[in-house]
């Protein structure tokens, strides 16, 4: 078990390879015209899926579990939900 260390100790940050986005039933969609780049969605996201880019928030769908807290907390209602197509 070369990837494991002694005594059940393991390396840092290896969760990043897990695609928790597969859990999602709904996906958040950002309207960049409305986004004011306040960063609230990024702060409140439990899964660190929101990045504030120059033209607005971008969702990292690799990790987004679709909790939709970002929609609820967006002060300008720039985010809406869409049913995830499987």
């Amino acid at each position: 078990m070369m990837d494991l260390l002694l005594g059940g100790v393991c390396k840092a940050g290896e969760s990043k390879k897990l695609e928790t986005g597969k859990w999602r039933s709904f996906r958040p969609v950002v309207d960049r015209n409305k986004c004011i780049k306040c960063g609230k969605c990024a702060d409140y996201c439990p899964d660190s899926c929101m990045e504030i880019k120059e033209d607005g928030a971008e969702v990292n769908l690799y990790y987004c579990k679709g909790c939709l807290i970002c929609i609820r907390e967006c002060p300008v209602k720039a985010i809406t939900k869409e049913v995830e197509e499987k």
Partner: protein
Amino acid sequence: MEVKELHAPGHRACPGCGCAIAVKIILRETGPNTIIVSPTGCLETFTSPIRSSSWEVPWIHSLFENAPAIATGVLAGLNSQGNPNGTKVVAIGGDGGTYDIGMGSLSGMFERKDDILYICYDNEAYMNTGIQGSSATPLGAGTTTTPVTGDSFGKMVEKKDMVAIALAHGVPYVATASIANLADLKKKVRKGMDNPGPAFILMLTPCNVGWGYEPEETVELARKAVETGLFPIVEFENGNMVSALKIRPVPVEEYLKPQKRYQHLFKNDKFEDVLKAIRKKAEDNIKKFGLA
């Protein structure tokens, strides 16, 4: 897209987890020169599966009842080697590990005045094992071990007052914080870290699975808990209250009604006394801490 949080994504928290929001924000403030200690619980389970740890800082879990003692040991270990980089030790535990099974160990850590920041993420029940009642479960809340049936209205007694317990130990920095006010949470984490000696921060972290609400409402419910007066945002230094977040009180029903664990209180008049007691709790808090 590269994520640069010290609490990495890919962790296995339920969608909309209040604790996961808190931990990400806490680590932004602690920075990388920190060792985190956690007892058994949701946080431990969703962050530490072997080969998929979400911790980018050194982290240690040992057992359910000993996180404060482990933290003390880690600190003693650092100090014995001179701790040249001034590494800090922060413990983050749930209400089960804090209010119940870890209480003796936490009391020891407080009494010894160990320089550790202990943060409790309080979701008011044993969520990891399937929503059993803890001593942090509030009056009237239904859980699998405080069931709502017949004359039983869920938890029949008040929750334990952890802030008072910390203060009674002479803990020099004691505060409450909310995931609905992240700037305040960060500020308090900073103060707790900088404070020499023990510090205790209590956070209410709503749990959609255990409380019975839609995942998107997590932050909103944390906010309502504060606005009703049920979860006062207060801060004590050396036993003196130095800040209390002012609120324009809203009725407790705005907090209680969206949650399944309180639904029975609104379906049967015989529980009116319980609702009254909860309202009184909010009023007492508002009066006691001068919130309004």
